[in-house]
């Protein structure tokens, strides 16, 4: 058994795959930099993230998979499901071992596990497109805080860029401590450490635009007005908007 230690990036992981073949490693387990390895007797193999090697792996995959099949691996990486590195590796190994495209062979457990991870990511991507709530600051920045189940910010960048092309915005992932920022030209990944008190949808008076509170109140009142009491179905409501997301949803915040 070889323990592969890499930097926790997708490129790093692809490099690791390259080196598994390069060094003919047999049984492997993946460990990301920070975490400590628990198998005492395993040989360790340190991977230096390498663009050329990563690209060669991608090229190889592109030959054997559809475009969707290739991104499925990336999505699994972002899914943060249990043992995601291992799931990806079993899938990739199956791809390279086969002569045909195997991405829909759901009888295979690796393919199946990837499908499940992709499904989870897809749902979370949808949710973030829906549940981001921007607040306007005094200096014309629309910002939102989220805590998605999977690491989906890279997947929603383009959606928000196309939609909000004429306003500056920032979406911050409080769980993973980074954000995506659009400056009217391009979207960039930014690392910021927001203060601990910025953890709910409550507007921060000092930095908010003077009309912000007004629009939030309007939205909350609107949300409550459209409900038809005779048809209340809280179970369905919570199924669509699970409670863990309420913290950042303006309409779920009590009236100020």
């Amino acid at each position: 058994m070889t323990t592969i230690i890499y930097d926790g990036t997708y490129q790093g992981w692809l490099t690791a795959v390259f080196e598994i073949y390069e060094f003919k490693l047999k049984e492997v387990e993946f460990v990301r930099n920070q975490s400590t390895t628990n198998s005492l007797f395993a040989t360790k193999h340190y991977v230096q993230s390498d663009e050329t090697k990563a690209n060669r792996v991608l090229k190889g995959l592109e030959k054997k998979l559809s475009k969707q099949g290739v991104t499925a691996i990336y999505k699994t990486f972002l899914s943060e499901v249990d043992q995601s590195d291992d799931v990806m590796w079993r899938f990739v190994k199956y791809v390279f071992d086969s002569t045909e495209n195997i991405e829909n062979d759901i009888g295979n457990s690796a393919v199946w596990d990837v499908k499940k991870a992709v499904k989870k990511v897809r749902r979370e991507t949808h949710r973030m497109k829906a549940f981001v709530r921007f607040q306007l600051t005094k200096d014309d920045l629309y910002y939102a805080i989220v805590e998605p189940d999977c690491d989906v910010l890279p997947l929603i960048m383009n959606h928000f860029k196309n939609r909000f092309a004429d306003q500056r915005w920032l979406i911050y992932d409080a769980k993973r401590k980074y954000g995506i920022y659009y400056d009217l030209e391009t979207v960039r990944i930014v690392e910021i450490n927001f203060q601990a008190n910025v953890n709910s949808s409550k507007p921060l008076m000092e930095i908010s635009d003077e009309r912000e509170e007004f629009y939030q109140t309007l939205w909350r009142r609107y949300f409550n007005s459209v409900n038809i009491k005779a048809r209340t179905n809280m179970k369905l409501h919570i199924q669509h908007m699970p409670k863990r997301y309420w913290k950042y949803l303006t309409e779920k915040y009590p009236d100020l």
Partner: protein
Amino acid sequence: MSSNRVIEKLEILADAAKYDVSCASGQSNRKNTNKGLGDSSGSGICHAYTEDGRCVSLLKILLTNYCIFDCAYCVSRKSNDIKRAAFTVEEVVDLTINFYRRNYIEGLFLSSGIFHNADYTMERLVRIAKKLRLEQNFNGYIHLKAIPGASEELMKEAGLYADRLSVNVEMPTAKSLKLLAPDKNHQDVIKPMKYLKNEIIGHKEEKKLNRKAPVFAPAGQSTQMVIGATRENDFEILKVADYFYQKMNLRRVYYSGYVPISTDNRLPIIGTPVPIIRENRLYQADWLIRFYGFNVNEIVGDDQPHLDLDIDPKLGWALRNLHQFPVDVNTADIEMIQRVPGIGFLSAKKIVTARRYKKLFPEDLQKLGIPYKRARYFLAFSTPFSIQKDYTPIQIKQQILKLQNSKYKNNFSGQLSLF
């Protein structure tokens, strides 16, 4: 403008609009090409869900709930003693833009009571859409209610700025409309619908020849019928819907279970339960007609004018047509696979893809997320893993109902007992 008055108006005019069910934003194709605000090139997103579980995707309001008409089923009817309000054109534009910029909504759904007359009202609706498009560079979704009786020029302008237009028939038949909405007549609804249909087709043709030609209501037109306020049966209702789909090219017909709001003796009394399950069955039937290749007559007919309330229409059809089963998922055509109760068209697609790799067994169907326990009465596998007993339709129905009850009991028992 005073903030508090705007808040109050919003409450009144959102409340008045909420009984209109056609909320979902349809498929449009308005891309953000001008580096403006918004994009409606994908399918609409539900940004929130109300506590009754419905999708909130648009800012759905009336411009005003003042109305010169007196339709018995409507909260805004002239004779009803309620608070009245009216937005200005600027207020609606401001609300839409500011909600959109905060990612609360996909766009605007604007309807209105009839103020002065049809043209006066329609002119304002059109002005709002025009301002949003031309002054605010807004590419989000706009659905306008076309006011019956408004001039063709206004209808035409509306189509240039809105993604979808709808003329509501309100009542399934002309007779009911006459009974409950004496100011209206059926032709007032059909005429603008026809006009819009021709404009939509005409603009599409033109667009094919000239890419720069303007788009006209790219998300098409829809309509809404109130059900349960009058006596029509499901067969009549679905026939009307089918007519709209076939002859008027409508994208959607919405069915709105009547919420009792009036003591008028022409209507169900206050406290009568909203026919939620019936409404749901109608949507399911509508879906089967539009996407599954079912004919209205396969689902309901003179001998069976109502949809079953306890089982969905697809299962109902299958039980009446057991001679068409069992279906072998490994060899059958996709059209037949998607007629199996429990297998939707997405599942059917998955089956057809998956069977290229291996012969499918029950556990594979389960892996694909297909409710096999329910579907199994209608399936055969060419090497049977277990011999299917010969059940009668009633036996199958009972077993499936048992399955459903254990799963949905808490959810539905309260409502089911109402019938």
